[in-house]
């Protein structure tokens, strides 16, 4: 993307426009400088990730006023540049009286707090930190302008609401050089300080956030072995011949790759192997090689055989119960990479660079972009949980009937209502869950918090454990009272993590939620199924529960359920613990 010319981006963007069917992602851009050239670049970054953007650029230098109009956008980006800010001040800044500077600062502070206020309930805001990179540095005595900018940044850090991501644009200036990023000519002629280069780098930098906000981060990193995890070919060079030693010239790069894989596995990212080798050879390396950092316990799944890798990756996704588009695949072979790009284009492929010294940097860049490295407790346990899943799968074979098997698991559900401690995890589940998700509405932490505070809404969260282990918070149901009829409640969102499905938990949970609604005095429940590319498995879910289909249009189905005549399933082997603060 950074290698594309501006005109190439414009062309590619035009080609992609109209090809993405999902609901548009509403982006508002507030700025006090001209950033219009960034619009198409941002559109392209969105579209190449299958996100259809609807970008609105606010009026020039109307950040405060337009922030009130943009609060309902999905994402607001704020380009509040110091260049145009200081242009408002008449007089030479360094020569200004302290009083003048102080009152100017108060003016900016109050503008900032209005913007913070207006945008505090917007799902996501990217706010650029103020930069003093344009102004010469005075080492002997700090210039007033530099001090002013650092005070503003401190104010922003202390006061910005939690939905704000503060973007350090100085870091972009540093990495690419100010002269590559800022063009005074265009600032003077058109108040457009940023170069196309800067806008490209900027949009690439925020790309992970776009992915995260749209539930498009990846879940698993699948690695080849020979010349990907170590230098050499185990089948030919043998245990002694392969190299991943931190002390060796080339081995050190592979050593770093293994460290990164371990790092990811600790953060709930699934690490898998997919390699054409003899399984025993590879396992021997993991178990006994003195330099192996990545061990068997870090690896959730491996397909080490001579089958084609496209089939293997498909099988991996299936066994993990995730979509193939949640996989990232690393390999050194052109052949394999091209095969996957051809057959499974939705899998992100990383080709080990020929210049092996670039390998760790390149992988790390992709890791930052594609994975959530700020996991919560449940993510951390995920490696363990996916392993338990396999134990359960293998236990399945020992029992005659599926019910005997399920009864033997000792499943226990715990349902909590409006428990603020789990806001981050609930928000994360709404962002990430695609398959068992009836309406696929994405919520930020702030929004979940608002639901919990609202007496007319309630949010039930479900925890699952069985004798093999604890799956944690894996189900969420958000309900909202009808605006007209206080006896009616709507299921706004209902979702469950795929790893707990197939054990009737999906039915018991809603049965229990219905019971909760009854205790809260509601007599009728309305619900909806909104189809997406990924949630076909739940299209008849409400029918199975016993809801009555009211109408169907373009795949969206609306249902109603009369609580008084509802009969829950009797599933004795699932135990429910609940904190009924109804």
């Amino acid at each position, binding site marked *: 993307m950074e290698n594309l*010319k501006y*005109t190439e981006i*414009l062309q590619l963007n*035009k080609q992609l426009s109209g090809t993405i069917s999902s609901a548009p992602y509403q982006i508002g851009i507030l700025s006090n400088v*001209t950033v*219009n050239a960034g619009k198409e670049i941002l559109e392209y970054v969105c579209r190449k990730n299958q996100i259809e953007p609807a970008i609105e650029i606010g009026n020039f230098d109307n950040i405060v006023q337009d922030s009130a109009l943009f609060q309902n956008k999905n994402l607001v980006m704020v380009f509040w540049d110091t260049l145009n800010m200081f242009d408002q001040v008449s007089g030479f800044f360094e020569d200004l009286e302290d009083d003048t500077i102080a009152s100017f600062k108060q003016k900016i502070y109050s503008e900032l707090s209005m913007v913070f206020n207006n945008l505090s309930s917007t799902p996501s805001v990217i706010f650029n930190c103020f930069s003093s990179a344009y102004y010469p540095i005075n080492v002997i005595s700090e210039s007033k302008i530099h001090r002013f900018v650092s005070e503003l940044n401190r104010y922003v850090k202390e006061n910005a609401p939690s939905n704000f991501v503060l973007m350090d644009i100085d870091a972009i200036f540093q990495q690419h050089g100010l002269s590559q990023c800022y063009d005074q*000519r*265009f600032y003077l002629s*058109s108040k457009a300080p940023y170069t*196309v280069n800067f806008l490209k780098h900027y949009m690439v930098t925020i790309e992970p956030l776009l992915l995260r906000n749209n539930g498009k981060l990846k879940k698993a990193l699948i690695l080849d072995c020979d010349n990907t995890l170590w230098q050499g070919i185990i089948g030919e060079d043998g245990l002694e011949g392969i190299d991943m030693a931190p002390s060796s010239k080339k081995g050190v790069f592979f050593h770093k790759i293994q460290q990164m894989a371990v790092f990811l596995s600790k953060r709930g990212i699934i690490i898998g192997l997919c390699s054409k080798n003899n399984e025993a050879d590879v396992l021997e390396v993991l178990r006994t090689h003195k330099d192996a950092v990545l061990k068997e316990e870090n690896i959730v799944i491996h397909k080490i055989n001579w089958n084609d890798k496209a089939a293997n990756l498909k099988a991996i996704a299936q066994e993990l119960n995730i979509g193939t588009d949640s996989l990232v695949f690393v390999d050194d072979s052109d052949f394999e990479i091209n095969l996957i790009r051809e057959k499974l284009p939705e899998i992100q492929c990383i080709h080990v660079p020929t210049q092996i010294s670039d390998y760790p940097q390149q992988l790390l860049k992709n890791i930052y972009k594609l994975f959530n490295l700020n996991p919560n407790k449940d993510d951390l346990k995920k490696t363990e949980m996916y392993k338990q899943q396999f134990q359960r799968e293998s236990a399945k074979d020992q029992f005659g009937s599926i019910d005997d098997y399920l009864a033997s698991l000792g499943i226990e559900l715990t349902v909590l209502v409006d428990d603020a401690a789990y806001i981050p995890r609930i928000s994360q589940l709404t962002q990430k869950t695609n398959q068992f998700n009836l309406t696929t509405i994405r919520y930020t932490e702030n929004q979940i918090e608002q639901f919990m505070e609202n007496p007319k809404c309630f949010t039930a969260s479900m925890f699952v454990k069985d004798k093999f282990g604890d799956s944690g918070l894996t189900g969420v149901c958000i309900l909202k009272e009808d605006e007209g009829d206080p006896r009616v409640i709507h299921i706004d969102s209902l979702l469950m993590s795929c790893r707990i499905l197939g054990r009737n938990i999906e039915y018991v949970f809603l049965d229990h939620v219905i019971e909760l609604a009854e205790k809260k005095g509601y007599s009728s429940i309305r619900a909806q199924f909104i189809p997406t590319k990924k949630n076909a498995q739940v299209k008849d879910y409400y029918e199975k529960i016993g809801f009555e289909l009211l109408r169907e249009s373009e795949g969206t189905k609306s249902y109603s359920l009369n609580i008084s005549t509802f009969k829950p399933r009797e599933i004795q082997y699932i135990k429910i613990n609940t904190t009924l603060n109804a």
Partner: protein
Amino acid sequence: MSVVFEVPLDSINENSSTDNLENWDSLRHLNLILALEEEFGVSIPDEEVGNLVNFKLIELTINELLK
């Protein structure tokens, strides 16, 4: 020019100018300058930027800068 102004390639000829291309407004003019500079690896002096109001002038200036 066709990509920047979002018009078909054949609607641009050597007589194209700000007067006869509707999409050639001041914001797109800026985008055009950015694209030209990147495409030809030149830096167009400020005083020229405002003058490049038709195809021939652009051609002339770029050729001049490439010498």
